[in-house]
């Protein structure tokens, strides 16, 4: 990178920077050459950073008033909602913030899938992202347990029971996770501890995620390697900062709508009933963002294989850079992949839908077909497509027109003439 020869102007700045090059880092971040054709799907990285910080800040505040005890947790949440100054606001931001976080992360992941951002040389960024996503799911699940409502309790029971599917040691592991013979106070206190820990692990991984990103630089909608800095790039500040800021504000309007006008719509009514080990809810459903995986879990008749399928559905993403054999990154130049991409999107939405429905009859059948297709997409379609697909000609740079015959010729030419 070209910014290593940066020198602060002031004497004090130089003195400090020679000892700890924070100013060099700040300079790198502001000057960081970013492709100028990034569209709004690229703004979700910044939005996700906002989500993480929001969750940490509101979470810290809630932790000051919350009591992690099976007999007092539910009551302490009501205390927050009623008696703590703006406690209702902080809790609703935190609870809906989790949903907003997942909404943003799903857009972020599917953006990466569409534009091939996971491909060389960005595999490490992608894998760190998958680990962050896994940690997010763990944090969200444990956070949902903390209010100690019915869905908290029974959700925790169902999910932790999955470990009993492991042959031989399964039962022992579940007892160890619970800290007893059922989900109870020891489970709650350890979930609280881990729920407090994980966001900081995520924060650390986010730093690595961004660090790894800044080595090759951003992918872009055209999906080609670009020279940096060049007329294909703009400095991160102010161009990307203001654009990310604008997108973040739009996102915050949606966020605010949920917090202020529909704060409980994404939750389940049963979680306002205090946990009762003697009464099982009619339907135990996880939060919406976990539903596709829940559908995969239930679509396999065998418990162990169901757990394996569910975990594989996530872990398969980690090897995606090697499953996708196409040399072309962006779906813009991959007419067949583009279609399969949208089928995958539909498939995941269908999985989410059937995950919320009872696992019986037609729903179960659909869940099975959709699960099979999910794996088919990654294990068969993607590897084969890389060899079979006739891709469109890719432009040489973002601003320069391609050599004859590209459908993007006119557009690229148009842009070119504007610069002159």
């Amino acid at each position, binding site marked *: 990178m070209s910014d290593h020869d940066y020198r602060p102007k002031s004497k004090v700045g130089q003195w400090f920077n020679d000892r700890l090059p924070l100013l060099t880092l700040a300079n790198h971040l502001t000057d960081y050459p970013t492709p*100028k*054709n990034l569209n709004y799907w690229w703004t979700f990285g910044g939005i996700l950073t906002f989500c993480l910080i929001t969750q940490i800040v509101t979470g810290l505040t809630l932790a000051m008033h919350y009591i992690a005890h099976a007999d007092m947790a539910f*009551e302490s949440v*009501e*205390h927050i*909602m*009623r008696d703590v100054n703006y406690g*209702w*606001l902080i809790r*609703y931001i935190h609870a809906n913030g989790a949903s907003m976080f997942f909404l943003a992360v799903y857009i972020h992941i599917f953006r990466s899938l569409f534009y091939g951002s996971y491909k060389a040389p960005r595999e490490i960024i992608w894998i760190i992202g998958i680990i962050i996503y896994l940690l997010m799911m763990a944090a969200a699940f444990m956070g949902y347990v903390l209010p100690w409502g019915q869905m908290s309790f029974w959700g925790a029971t169902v999910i932790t029971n999955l470990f009993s599917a492991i042959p031989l040691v399964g039962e022992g592991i579940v007892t160890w996770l619970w800290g007893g013979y059922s989900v109870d106070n020891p489970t709650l206190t350890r979930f609280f501890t881990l729920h407090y820990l994980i966001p900081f692990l995520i924060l650390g991984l986010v730093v690595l995620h961004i660090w790894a990103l800044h080595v090759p630089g951003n992918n872009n909608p055209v999906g080609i390697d670009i020279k940096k800095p060049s007329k294909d790039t*703009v400095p991160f500040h*102010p*161009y990307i900062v*203001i*654009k990310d*800021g*604008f997108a973040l*504000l*739009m996102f*915050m*309007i949606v966020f*605010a*709508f949920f*917090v*202020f*006008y529909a*704060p*409980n719509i994404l939750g389940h*009514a*049963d979680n*306002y*009933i205090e946990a009762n080990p003697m009464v099982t809810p*009619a339907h135990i459903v996880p939060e919406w963002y976990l539903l596709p995986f829940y559908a995969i879990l239930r679509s396999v008749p065998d418990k162990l294989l169901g757990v394996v399928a569910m975990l594989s559905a996530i872990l398969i993403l980690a090897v995606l850079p090697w499953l996708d054999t196409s040399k072309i990154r962006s779906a813009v130049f991959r007419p067949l992949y583009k*279609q399969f991409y*949208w*089928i995958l999107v*539909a498939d995941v939405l*269908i999985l989410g*839908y059937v995950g919320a429905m009872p696992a019986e009859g*037609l729903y179960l059948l659909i869940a099975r077909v959709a699960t099979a297709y999910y794996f088919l997409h990654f294990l068969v379609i993607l590897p084969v497509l890389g060899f079979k697909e006739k891709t469109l000609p890719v432009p040489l740079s973002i*601003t320069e027109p391609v050599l004859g015959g590209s459908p993007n010729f006119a557009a690229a030419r148009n*842009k070119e003439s*504007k*610069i002159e």
Partner: protein
Amino acid sequence: MKNLHKLFSILIIFIVSSSLSIAAEKVEYLKTDWSFKGLFGKFDRASLQRGYQVYTEVCASCHSMKYLSYRNLSEKGGPEFSEAQAKAIAASFEVTDGPNSDGEMFTRPGKLSDKFVMPYDNVKAAQAANGGAYPPDMSVLVKARGGGVDYIYSLLQGYEEAPSNVSLDDGVYYNKYMYGNKIRMAAPLSNGLLEYGDGTSATVEQMSKDVTTFLMWSAEPHLEARHQMGFKAIVYLIILTVLVYFSMKKIWSRVESEV
């Protein structure tokens, strides 16, 4: 491509129709005009006060409301009884306190800081008094039921003669809005059951509406503050978004790319 579109439309039709069929299986709840819904929704103060009367004269003999304190009755955004009224309400209840310096528990008149007095000492006592069924705590009841206020409002008016093919055990009643139609609570309301202080005629419908409004407040005591702040926050965000949008346009006009 054409096949793909077909496939998609089939999927969409399937999802829409299946969700419609699910909706069709659900009972339609009774509707009324809730004053607290919408962007500027506020509680109807008089209705909240009447609702408290219904709660305390009818529901409170079995249902606790353990997360509320008497002081809440005079707080902003609630029934807004005057502080003197709330004090008088609190004082009309006997509260067990102690132990005193002799180690004895004693009773005294309630204070504003006391939580609502519970009808039973514990869950077991409540079950014993109600044929084994536990009357749920009402503090967050509205949020703990799928249909929310519409469900509670309908349930209170949903008692009818059981159809001939349904047999009911002793102490079980038929309610067309209850999950499974069988409920352990006898119809709690009847026309003219109580006399409203403000002269409103105490029909079952009126009492249902008032007490449901009260339960909405008890579940969401800061609802009014939330709506007010929400409106300000969203207007602020929209203005800021517009300003940032034009700044962005200005900045990006230096490069040819569109934003």
